[in-house]
């Protein structure tokens, strides 16, 4: 990994590892943006600021409240696995963005960056389930299993959605995929893969229609017993995953840093925030996809659709070469 650029025709430069701090800062800022936007939209739905912690400032009030709240634990909790699950989401999101180029800079210029991202999103399966399992509570466990049920429905379509840009660009290097979209974004001529990818991002962030794993009907499901800092870290992890997912879509589907006037890094951020806003807004529009019902959609509709998309992309790629 000391000089991965020599192995590829990647158009981007790897920055010193110390810049990872900046990447984390950007990820954090994006996560906060998503939380603020969600707070604002929630307040609008309630028709006013509602309560003393309403509106756009809600995430800050909520964070302050959780930091002061005493950590609660349950009888015979599997504490180690529980903590790993709760804190892991944030770590996973951070690992995801290491392969996302910000304009011309990236932290890891992996030859298999796309696979790296995919491996990270699969890790979320284990983390959410462990969060549900560790608390030793029935509702928590039900929540954890609900996530796995959703996972069975969304993961394969998500994987094949990531395959489409990789086929078209003939590489798994994220920077090279972005560079391969000269003139025409992949989102434009592979819309099915793009939409399925966005659904996948919402799913691995346990967000919006994919939130039954933490639903009110099971008292908060996987996160039911999380309190204080544990809960704060878990929630921050969800927003960070949403932000990381949106950021990764930019080089994969939206042409990376390409755009007029602004420099590359600015375009990456603008596109990321725009996608993030769409994902946050999605939650307002859609009811939950119940896991048992979504399974059928995942396998009977999304998977065939995205496989067909891959086929079309592959035929075009062969025909062009």
């Amino acid at each position, binding site marked *: 990994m000391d000089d991965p650029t020599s192995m590829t025709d990647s158009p981007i430069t790897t920055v010193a590892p110390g810049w990872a701090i900046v990447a984390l800062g950007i990820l954090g800022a994006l996560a906060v943006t998503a939380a603020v936007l969600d707070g604002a*939209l*929630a307040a609008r*739905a*309630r*028709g006013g600021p509602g309560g003393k912690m309403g509106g756009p400032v809600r995430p800050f009030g909520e964070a302050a409240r959780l930091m002061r709240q005493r950590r609660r634990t*349950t*009888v*015979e909790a599997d504490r180690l696995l529980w903590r790993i699950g709760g804190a892991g989401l944030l770590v996973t999101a951070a690992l995801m963005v290491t392969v996302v180029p910000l304009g011309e800079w990236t932290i890891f210029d992996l030859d298999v960056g796309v696979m790296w991202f995919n491996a990270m999103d699969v890790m979320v399966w284990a983390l959410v389930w462990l969060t549900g399992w560790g*608390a*030793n*509570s*029935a*509702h928590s466990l*039900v929540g954890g*299993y*609900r996530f796995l049920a959703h996972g069975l429905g969304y993961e394969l379509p998500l994987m094949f959605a990531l395959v489409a840009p990789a086929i078209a660009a003939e590489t798994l290097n994220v920077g090279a995929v972005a560079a391969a979209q000269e003139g025409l974004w992949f989102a434009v001529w592979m819309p099915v893969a793009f939409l399925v990818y966005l659904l996948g991002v919402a799913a691995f962030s346990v967000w919006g*229609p994919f*939130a*039954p794993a933490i*639903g*009110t*009907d*099971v*008292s*908060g499901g996987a996160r*039911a*017993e999380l309190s204080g800092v544990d809960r704060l870290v878990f929630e921050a992890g969800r927003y960070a995953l949403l932000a990381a997912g949106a950021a990764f879509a930019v080089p994969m589907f939206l042409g990376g840093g390409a755009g007029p006037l602004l420099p590359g890094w600015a375009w990456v951020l603008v596109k990321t925030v725009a996608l993030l806003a769409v994902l946050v807004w999605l*939650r*307002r*529009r*859609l*009811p*939950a*996809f*119940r896991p*048992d*019902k979504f399974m059928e959609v995942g396998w009977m509709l999304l998977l065939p659709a995205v496989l067909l998309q891959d086929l079309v992309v592959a035929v075009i790629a062969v025909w062009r070469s």
Partner: protein
Amino acid sequence: MDHEGHEGMDHGGHEGMDHEGYEGYEGYEGHEGHEGHEGHEGHEGHEGHEGHEGHEGMDHGSHEGMEHGSHEGMDHGGHEGMDHGDMEMSPGGIPLAEGGEDRDGLEMDVLQVRLGPVLRDWPAGLVLHCSLQGDVIVEAQAELVDGRARQDDDVVGPARGIDNIASLLALAGWDDAAAEARRIRDTALESGEGAAGSELERLRRRVRRSWTLRWSLRGVRRLSDKEAHARRLPADAVGDTYDRLMGMLDRAVAGVAATAAGDTGTRTNDAGRTLSTDHLAHLVMGLDLATARLVLASLDIHELLAGQAEHEVSHG
């Protein structure tokens, strides 16, 4: 061993399971409510085991393969004031889950989980003692806490209906629409002059337009005419959960309009919305937690009555 765990199971698990802060709920004695349960006629072997009320409520269908003879040797005295912490099979005072036959014939853990009486988006006062296998309710007993009849007036009646709509929407995972419904409920309570009417109409349109909600609720616990009658449910409970949601919205729109017009004729409608707990448990058996809660919310319960089965047992 098997059966000793029953009572402790229930009590030990409460703290962790009820998240609505009802820790102080005392006086409920384990499985007493189960005595009223029918369908265990075939189990003569159990007669004489005074200490085993908890048995009656269990799914005896799954006991075919068990050796009932083994009960004889058990120390029944141990039921009183058992210290579960000392038992090898109860780490931390919570006995391990017992196995039970699942729908597919394989053994699966049975968890005793109590829902209610105070729970978000849940009929107030209703307590459902569930035996869960995974998240499927294999056995349920309904009970009512503080079942005093309230008198809904012309303003509170429709508002309660709107509140029930909000609960169902929240359980369906549509926070935005649920928040809107709650806001309309508040408007209906405050002004009482039908200002909520147009907003309610808009909510109805919005809900009707959502094809994802329709897809999610279609076919959930479809009730036939006969079934609804047998369970003493109101006639509008016929159909699936989506039909019932639409019915709730229609009634709410009509109720608010009637109140605004000063027409008190709708009161008769509300009278039919008092349900007995007797029939609720049977409605949700065999469903998973999510659908069970959707079904209960879709019944638009304004008032609950303690069922017959409950009156038969003594509440020490």
